[in-house]
């Protein structure tokens, strides 16, 4: 994996006092946290807690009114090295209708490609490697829309891997996929993290990520209400045995 030659920052993400207003409504209030490189971090919270707004703010998709955001040591306004960020949007957000899996995955490489230039051998190699990494090589020429929900999610992860990312941001990657597939997706993300990728995962609940995460940040009404090591599982209810 190629790394940027500049002095690497030890922090993948840094925010301080970030406040986002939509109209008069505060969606995020004074969000401050740091993500050291190599962490597998979950951002959790209920519906409307501000999780998705937070990741969109980190990615420069949502303007913020106050505070500071830095990605890989560079202030967001000056950040240009987008090939080092891999974004996996929420399932069903894209209107990908006609493309093959390989074409979808190849579009992740555009941060590195120049306009009007055909894909280089490196580009094609990166796409093949990413497809292999998520075990979709044999579906490369299938229409993306005909894959199952879990396979589509894996293809979108492959797309985010093509740019040699240092930081991957995944917005609810387990939404809309069955339990068995949730396990394999969580394991895939944990494997990528073990290989050196910093991963920031928006989750509704821990599910199969229980035991895999280094850390969880919990949001409620736009504020961080908990930040630390997650409990082994927040969803399992232990019943007393019936005899």
């Amino acid at each position, binding site marked *: 994996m190629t790394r940027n030659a500049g002095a690497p920052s030890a922090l993948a993400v840094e925010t301080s006092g970030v406040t986002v207003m939509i109209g008069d409504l505060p969606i995020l209030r004074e969000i401050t946290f740091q993500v050291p490189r190599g962490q597998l971090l979950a951002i959790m919270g209920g519906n409307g807690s501000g999780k998705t707004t937070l990741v969109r703010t980190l990615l420069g998709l949502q303007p913020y009114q106050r505070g500071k955001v830095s990605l890989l040591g560079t202030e967001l306004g000056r950040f240009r090295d987008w090939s080092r960020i891999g974004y996996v*949007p929420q399932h069903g*957000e894209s209107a990908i209708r*006609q493309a093959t899996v390989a*074409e979808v995955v190849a*579009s992740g490489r555009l941060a590195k490609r120049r306009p009007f230039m055909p894909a280089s051998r490196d580009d094609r190699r990166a796409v093949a490697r990413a497809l292999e990494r998520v075990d979709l090589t044999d579906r490369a020429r299938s229409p993306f829309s005909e894959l199952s929900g879990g396979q589509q999610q894996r293809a979108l992860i492959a797309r985010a891997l093509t740019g040699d990312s240092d930081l991957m941001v995944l917005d609810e990657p387990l939404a809309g996929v069955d339990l068995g597939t949730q396990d394999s997706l969580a394991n895939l993300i944990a494997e990528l993290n073990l290989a050196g990728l910093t991963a920031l995962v928006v989750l509704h609940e821990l599910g199969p990520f229980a035991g895999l995460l280094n850390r969880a940040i919990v949001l409620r009404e736009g504020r961080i209400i908990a930040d630390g090591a997650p409990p082994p599982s927040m969803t399992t209810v232990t019943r007393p045995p019936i005899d």
Partner: protein
Amino acid sequence: MELFTLPFMQRALLAAVLAGLIGPAIGTYIVQRRMSLLGDGLGHVAIAGVGLAIATGTAPLPVAVLVCIVGAIAVELLRQTGKASGDVGLAILFYGGLAAGVLLAGLAGQGAGTLSQYLFGSLLTVAEIDLWVILGLAIVVLVPTIGLSPQLFAVSSDERYARTLGLPVRAYNLLIVVLAAITVTVSMRTVGLLLVSALMVVPVAAANNLLIGFRPALFGAMGLGVVAAVSGVIGSYYGNTAPGSLIVLIAIGLFALSTPLARIVRRRVTPEFEVIDPEPLPHQTEDHTGHTGHVHGPGCGHLAVRHGDHTDYVHDGHRHAPHGDHYDEH
């Protein structure tokens, strides 16, 4: 074949080839953005340009191109700033264009008859100077729609994701609508301003049915666009009709054919379904007599299911795989 020796038909056919190429080329991105009616709206705006040219006594094509580009940029800026909600702003712009065109032409002493050659196309109106303008503008449309196809595909399928790639999303979106505006006005001599949108959408829909992949469908749509435009122009020469109507009906005919054709073409390349976690199955060797003269294989017409190290085929309520001289029931 005398029509190929007539200079006005040669010009009309060349203009048709170009319109057939560029309509679907930009239409591919418009359809991907789910804005299939944008071309129709821009056609209405271009009518104002034609009216203005008639009123001022200037050449219609360059004036219509300029007016349509200004209209297209206005539409896109309204969309980007979120002010086009409810489509009311768009409707005002589009119908304002049509009304202004008719009014300006009327003030210049010309009726709807003069305008109609621009609304539905006309074989006689492609002047030699027009052909050069059309050729130049067609190149302006084709170079980015083909050369920037990965970028424009990313922007039209998911703007937000494209932004995280560092792509200049606003500029690309403006480029798409400006190229659409040029396409609409370039095609007004052939298909006409009221029907041009069909040439941007229908061949794309047909190619999407027939071909797998964004780039194959892009080139396939351009091919179908040329077939429809050229055969429409030739047919209208013999039928003495406005070419636009025939071009659009032929394109719709191609689309209607594409659905049953797609079943045949796609069946050959239909990827197998995959059993992600196949349950262990007992090895059954039932005698199966329903296969006289039929061997399962890719494209045999039965649903193929990847199952561990082999492929099963589903038919008549069961799933099985050939194994030696018998079938294993799964």
